[in-house]
């Protein structure tokens, strides 16, 4: 596995994890081998009345990630991510930084989700 996306309140590894997936401020894309990062702003998605989760899934799929780390992933986003075989790790602890989330992921102390943990639109 080479690249993952972490829902984030800001563009860098030391920003806090945004617990929301569809309406996250953005996604920090982390190359696990080099720890190089890039950032996808999700501002455009936040203004959608509906479909934010699907749009966000499109964005991270376009970045070519294999896995998403987040707090809460809704059913349509989960369906969209599953369709392109992007794994989901959810229920990240509140107040965690992106760096800490990546570290936790690399240590293997996470579980891949087998279903969404939020209703639609929340």
């Amino acid at each position, binding site marked *: 596995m080479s690249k993952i996306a972490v829902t984030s309140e800001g563009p860098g590894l030391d920003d806090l994890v945004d617990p929301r997936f569809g309406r996250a401020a953005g996604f920090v894309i982390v190359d696990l081998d080099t720890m190089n990062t890039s950032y996808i702003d999700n501002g455009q998605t936040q203004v*959608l*009345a*509906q*479909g*934010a989760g*699907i*749009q966000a*899934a*499109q964005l991270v*799929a*376009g970045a070519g990630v294999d896995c998403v780390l987040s707090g809460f992933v809704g059913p*349509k986003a989960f*369906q*969209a991510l599953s*369709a*392109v075989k992007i794994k989901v790790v959810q229920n990240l602890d509140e107040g965690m930084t992106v760096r800490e989330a990546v570290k936790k992921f690399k240590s293997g102390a996470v579980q891949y989700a087998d279903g969404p943990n939020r209703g639609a639109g929340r």
Partner: protein
Amino acid sequence: MIVSIASGKGGTGKTTVAASLARVWERPLVAVDLDVEAPNLHLFLCPQIEETGPAWIETPIVDESKCTFCSACSDLCQFKAISMMGSLVLTFPEMCHGCGGCIAICPQKALSPGRRQLGEISRGHAGGVQFLMGRLRIGEAMSPPLMRQVKTAMNEIAGAGGLDAVIDSPPGVSCPAVNAVMDSDVIVLVTEPTPFGFHDFRLAWEAFAPFGKPMGVVINRAGIGDRQVYSFCAEKEIPVLAEAPYDRAVAEGYSQGRIIADLSPKYRHIFVSLYAKIFELASARLDKGASHA
């Protein structure tokens, strides 16, 4: 003439007023329940239903063998009901608003119309009154598309027979409520003279006033609460067309599914008078319009 019975707050007496108006309406009438999420006018009018049929909305079906993944459909869709995930087209039929844009824009003609059931539409009659009702499918999130189909049926019935229409609208001031009142000639707002009632009545007035339609008020449960509704109506020159008192007899009649206009001559008179005032309100507006022209 089309009269919509609306309110901001729920439970103020829209259906009570609509059913009673239907009872005293002298001209040929179709009574329409547009509160498709929770229709209840039939519980009072007890119509004989002659026909019930499904109502559908058009949603896209993808032929992946023709798709070149150009994403024109996905870029167009404002609701993400059709989305491109790499070389996969995902559809979310429950999110589709049925605009047909994706089908029209597809350069490969890879999309064809499918459908999702919105609910059902029933028609019948209660005595001499025609009856029409929409009922949203459980789980369906969008009521305006079904409401538009009920209104189309209403216009067919009313247009063919020269009928008036009384619409029992959904509560609130969002899309369903606006959809119910936007095509009517007169809007009757039902409120109760309480702080809650006033708060939501005012929201409804603010939401519907931009239509510039004649609007009047029925104050239900008069005698409780305070005078805020009355002073607001005086200030904004909104006519109070009728007042129905807070009365145990009304609650008892309602709980038995009775039409309030049938309870006593006193109550019948309230709605006969309301009927006349609705026509006065409509014609006053016509005169005013004529004098401006």
